[in-house]
């Protein structure tokens, strides 16, 4: 296969193979600390007795305005959350906006307002940017890249799980992905599903302050299914999830059933999957639940020796939770 295909960008196994065969060749990949080779939520560079955490994400979402947010709010949330996942307080962000000619100036203003509002929620600043305009023939929708830096005392890795830890998810699963897919495919529901898009530093900070967090990752592309697999494999542990514990909104569940899509496999944009030492689990959960974006947090599973991610189903069965192969697509059979 000598061409890049859509599936290479879908966050699954093929994406890993693309990264492995292309980007992993970069030799200048580490500035001390956590570098590109870690494929964590961001990099961490030692500086004095702290770490500068650096991360980037490009946002290509369509529709650009959706129930619960827009591409502006998303671009800030995504980067703030990646910084938070590394245990870093988000400090300063960049914005690289690429606009197709003919784009509505009012829409651009709305997007920028959302950017500002999301920044304000976590006390971060947009300190530098870049704007490009491309011909309509070259690009069909606005793209926003956001990079950001944060400061961490010690970076939290996605590979830090230990047997005995418990797994917390900070809220309901699948809201963003299921709502976007429904919206995008023009499936008309009587009520409106909403994305959970939010910058959750304050929620994460509450968890960090308790002192028992061992690993974190935000379940964006590939969803909770993907994140659990990455965390388990990088930490060399097995994760066991209780199906009954999974927090899934009733309307999200109904839409997911209709679409034939597993809510575990779609993106969340305001959630974290957090590994916590068992002795700190209750306190951490309570701290999280006490924050704006952590009210629905629950413990969904535990970490044991072994490998893989296993779900204990409602009927007492067990199955692997696998990382999705590509972007979820509505299905009927």
């Amino acid at each position: 296969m000598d061409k890049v295909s859509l599936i290479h960008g879908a966050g699954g196994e093929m994406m890993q193979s693309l990264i492995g065969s292309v980007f992993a060749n970069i030799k200048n990949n580490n500035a001390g600390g956590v570098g590109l080779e870690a494929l964590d939520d961001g990099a961490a560079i030692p500086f004095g007795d702290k770490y500068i955490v650096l991360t980037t994400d490009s946002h290509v979402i369509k529709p650009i305005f959706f129930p619960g947010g827009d591409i502006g709010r998303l671009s800030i949330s995504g980067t703030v959350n990646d910084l938070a996942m590394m245990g870093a307080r988000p400090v300063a962000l960049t914005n690289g906006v690429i606009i197709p000619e003919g784009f509505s100036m009012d829409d651009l203003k709305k997007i920028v307002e959302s950017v500002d509002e999301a920044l304000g929620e976590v006390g971060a600043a947009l300190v530098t940017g870049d704007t490009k305009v491309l011909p309509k023939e070259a690009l069909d929708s606005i793209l926003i890249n956001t990079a950001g830096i944060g400061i961490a005392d010690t970076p939290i890795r996605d590979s830090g799980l230990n047997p005995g830890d418990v797994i917390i998810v900070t809220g309901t699963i699948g809201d963003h992905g299921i709502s976007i897919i429904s919206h995008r495919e023009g499936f008309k529901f009587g009520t409106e599903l909403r994305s959970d898009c939010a910058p959750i530093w304050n929620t994460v900070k509450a968890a960090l302050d308790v002192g028992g967090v061992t690993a974190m990752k935000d379940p964006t592309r590939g969803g909770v299914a993907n994140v659990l697999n990455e965390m388990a494999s990088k930490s060399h542990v097995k994760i066991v999830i209780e199906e009954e514990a999974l927090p899934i909104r009733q309307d999200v569940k109904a839409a997911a059933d209709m679409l034939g899509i597993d809510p575990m496999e779609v993106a969340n944009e305001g959630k974290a999957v957090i590994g916590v030492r068992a002795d700190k689990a209750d306190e951490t959960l309570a701290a999280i639940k006490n924050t704006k974006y952590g009210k629905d947090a629950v413990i969904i599973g535990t970490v044991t020796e072994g490998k893989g991610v296993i779900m204990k189903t409602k009927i007492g069965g067990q199955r692997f939770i696998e990382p999705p192969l590509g972007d979820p697509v509505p299905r009927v059979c």
Partner: protein
Amino acid sequence: MCLAVVAQLKEIKENTAVADFGGLTQEVRIDLLENPKVDDWVLVHTGFAIQQIDEKEALETLRLLEEIAKMDEEQ
């Protein structure tokens, strides 16, 4: 091609009905049904109601399953 979801008919128009899928509503075609009525529970496949659910049978199956579980306990 056989994913079907249970819904309840809420409002019947000509050959369509508004169906309630546990909180979410969507319009479905009902022209494959013999005699659709409001409040009927139906199976919906690709936007078409393909059959009414027989509530009596559903309860009967349930009873059977519970009996099996109880039999077990009694053993």
